[in-house]
């Protein structure tokens, strides 16, 4: 038909246009990989990056597309799955979540605990060939602080960052900060970028908010646009960004041991059935897109290797203290007794989660062994009676962005129905959800906190009276006092004790009603080696070798 040929014409035209305009950032170097793995030509992408190790390209299927690649600006897990392999931090958590040297080889704390001195590696090169030194560290941290970027709050106690010499960084604090290592190295959100790469940054004044007339997102001015380009010190360099995937190539001058593969191709596959089929048919080597109900079956499947490990995440629900009758502690206690945490966890995650009545998983040093509630509908009804509440009707806000909240809410609704509470589930898009949460426009909501390492991250902003994430409106001066003491207590055991006390109060008051810690589940091709599944869900392909 005539229309068909017209379309073909148009198609050809657009393809041509795309090929031309793509030259700047995207398309280059593509297609070179096709040949069959071994030894891709050097210099293809203009950086020092190139293969030559003959290790082939690892293909990883992740479930969503990174929003942007600026490590200091993004908050998306998908972005950090990629960035983990591109950037480095001063220190890095090992698989037991204890901090180890990375770009810093050693560190020391002054007697008053107010100055931390980091000694840096002297053999590190950025992907653009420039040499890493202390100025880069100061620049990176000052960028986060002065531009009020996503992780600025982690530097709240930082007074000044000094660089006495190229191999030394001193961080001066306003108060002792025992969790400083987690704050500057917990994940790649505090990555070190080359000095000046993202435009001028005002330094040193510790978050005075001075606006460096900085470009709008993606704007010009700076040398490169970190939103879709990257210059890090990690094992892989960013090669290309496309609508369906991101390609990294091995960085030859990497300071560490790896990498063993020529590159990594991240593909975005949101449908689990599709991702798993790709893995089983051998087009994909690794994926984390695994629905919990398939774990048992896949564990027995020879075509894949599947591992699970408890994560550091937790899921909870909370009520709005500023709305009656949820300000009444008895009502909240009734809700806590009315639900069957085991059933909720089973429904939402099958066996891939552990019930927990506090936030921190039992595998952690910081875990608090405390579980006062049991599934006791009679007790719940009695508490409601004591509170003088009957015929309670309430909304429970969840989001399809995290389908497990919807599933869990259906079970919660069913269980609360048994004690005469009518629950209306409100499933919102995440944007609306956050908006309503921010405005306090809810009776109750369910969500999770992901990737925390230090108890500070688990408990502070959520439960302090003035905490920036205390949407439920909880306020207990005793808890405030304990948390504030814990924040600056440098003795680990004493600090743990303070947290234990605070957590018990938080659980008794039902500030959050904690539900479970999910497992991490990841699967890869049998024979793939050098990969370690981690509780913080960081995925690092530095040591990976493909199956023969």
């Amino acid at each position: 038909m005539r229309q068909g040929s017209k379309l073909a014409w148009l198609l050809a035209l657009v393809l041509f246009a795309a090929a031309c305009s793509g030259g700047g950032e995207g398309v280059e170097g593509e297609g070179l990989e096709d040949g069959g793995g071994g030894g891709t030509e050097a210099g293809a992408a203009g950086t020092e990056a190139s293969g030559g190790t003959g290790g082939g390209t690892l293909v990883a299927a992740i479930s969503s597309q990174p929003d942007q690649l600026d490590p200091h600006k993004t908050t998306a897990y998908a972005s950090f799955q990629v960035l983990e392999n591109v950037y480095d931090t001063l220190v890095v958590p090992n698989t037991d979540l204890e901090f180890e040297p990375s770009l810093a080889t050693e560190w020391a704390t002054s007697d008053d605990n107010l100055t931390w001195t980091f000694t840096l590696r002297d053999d590190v090169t950025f992907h653009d060939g420039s040499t890493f030194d202390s100025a880069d560290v100061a620049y990176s941290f000052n960028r986060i602080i002065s531009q009020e970027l996503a992780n600025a709050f982690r530097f709240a106690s930082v007074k000044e960052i000094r660089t006495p010499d190229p191999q030394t960084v001193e961080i001066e604090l306003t108060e002792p900060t025992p969790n400083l290592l987690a704050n500057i190295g917990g994940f790649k959100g505090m990555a070190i970028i080359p000095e000046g790469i993202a435009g001028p940054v005002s330094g040193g004044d510790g978050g005075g908010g001075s606006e460096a007339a900085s470009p709008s997102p993606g704007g010009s001015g700076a040398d490169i646009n970190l939103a879709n380009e990257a210059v890090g010190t990690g094992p892989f360099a960013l090669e290309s960004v496309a609508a369906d995937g991101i390609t990294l190539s091995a960085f030859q001058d990497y300071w560490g041991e790896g990498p063993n593969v020529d590159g990594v191709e991240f593909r975005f596959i949101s449908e689990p059935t599709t991702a798993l089929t790709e893995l089983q048919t051998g087009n994909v080597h690794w994926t984390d897109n695994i629905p919990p109900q398939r774990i048992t079956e896949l564990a027995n499947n020879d075509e894949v290797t599947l591992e699970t490990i408890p994560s550091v995440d937790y899921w909870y629900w909370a009520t709005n203290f500023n709305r009656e009758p949820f300000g009444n502690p008895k009502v909240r206690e009734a809700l806590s007794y009315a639900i069957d945490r085991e059933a909720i966890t089973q429904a939402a995650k099958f066996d891939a989660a552990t019930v927990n009545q506090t936030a921190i998983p039992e595998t952690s040093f910081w875990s608090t062994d405390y579980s006062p509630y049991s599934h006791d509908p009679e007790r719940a009804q009695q508490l409601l009676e004591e509170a003088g509440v009957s015929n309670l009707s309430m909304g429970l806000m969840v989001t399809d962005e995290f389908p497990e909240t919807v599933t869990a809410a259906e079970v919660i609704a069913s269980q609360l129905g048994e004690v005469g509470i009518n629950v209306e589930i409100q499933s919102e898009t995440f944007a609306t959800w956050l908006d309503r949460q921010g405005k306090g426009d809810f009776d109750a909501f369910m969500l999770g906190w992901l990737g925390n390492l230090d108890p500070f991250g688990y408990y502070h902003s959520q439960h302090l009276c003035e905490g920036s994430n205390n949407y439920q409106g909880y306020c207990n001066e005793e808890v405030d006092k304990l948390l504030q003491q814990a924040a600056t207590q440098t003795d680990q055991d004493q600090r743990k004790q303070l947290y234990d006390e605070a957590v018990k109060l938080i659980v008794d008051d039902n500030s959050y009603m904690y539900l479970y810690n999910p497992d991490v589940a990841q699967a890869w091709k049998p024979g793939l080696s050098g990969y370690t599944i981690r509780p913080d869900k960081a995925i690092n392909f530095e040591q990976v070798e493909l199956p023969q």
Partner: protein
Amino acid sequence: MTTHTDAEQPGREPVDESPGEAGTPPAPAATSRWRETLGILVRNRLALFALVVLGVLLLAGLTGPYVAPYGFNEVVVEDRLEAPSSAHLFGTDNLGRDVFSRVLLGARVSILVGVVAVGISLTVGTLFGLVAGFYGGKIDDGIMRLMDVLFAFPALLMAIAVLAILGPGTVNAMVAIGIVYTPIFARVTRGSVLSVREADFVRAARSIGAGDVRLAGLHVLPNVLAPIIVQTSVSLAFAILSEAALSFLGLGTQPPNPSWGRMLSEGRAFIQQAWWIAVFPGLAIFFTVLSFNVLGDALRDVLDPRQKSAIESRGMSA
């Protein structure tokens, strides 16, 4: 008698065989037409089947809560993912709920969404189309450009945006779907109105001094009903599917209320373990959509054997 309505074709002479008696309301003719319609429907076995299905559906919608063996949100996690059995005719879902009961209770949502959403677009769209076609000129231009703007806006995005503003839920989903399908009805109606506006019986009625409202309502509208009715039956089917698409995105019927669309989309995660979660609501959708469409086809054949398809359909499957 037939009334040739030719919606979208410019440059054709409308053929009209209606009786010339000026000013006579076409009521008697319409009555016999209905009788004829019913007769043909009964003779058409497929159409009869469709009527029976819709009857059952209606019955399910009305009596569902009384006859369903289990509640729609009776969660028994230990009994989850059980295959169809005598205890659970259609098996159980991932929360141990009875799929048969949920399919039965979901009928109400589907009927309501279909009828109300299409009711909205039918009323608003037909009114716009009637006014535009009847008056022509600037009014026509204004209304139809507005409809074009709505039409040019991708349906699913429009529905999502409307739902994001109104908030998710069955009722709001009806409104959103209703808005999305309004321009189609406006177009269909306008096209037909244009073709009968200058017909003899309308001119005659005008000449004896009938007012605009009377003219449009009593003389024009009844003669353009055929394509509108067909469009209605087609839209009913699409409205039900649209609700499924919106539920797929979590914006339609709110859990735990049963909606066939939502059951279907949630069931896809269990396709390799428990086919029954999604297959039964899927079959329910299939038979409902089939029935509406077969009925629409039959009505078209009956009402207007030579009618050029003035129906525009617009899939909205997420």
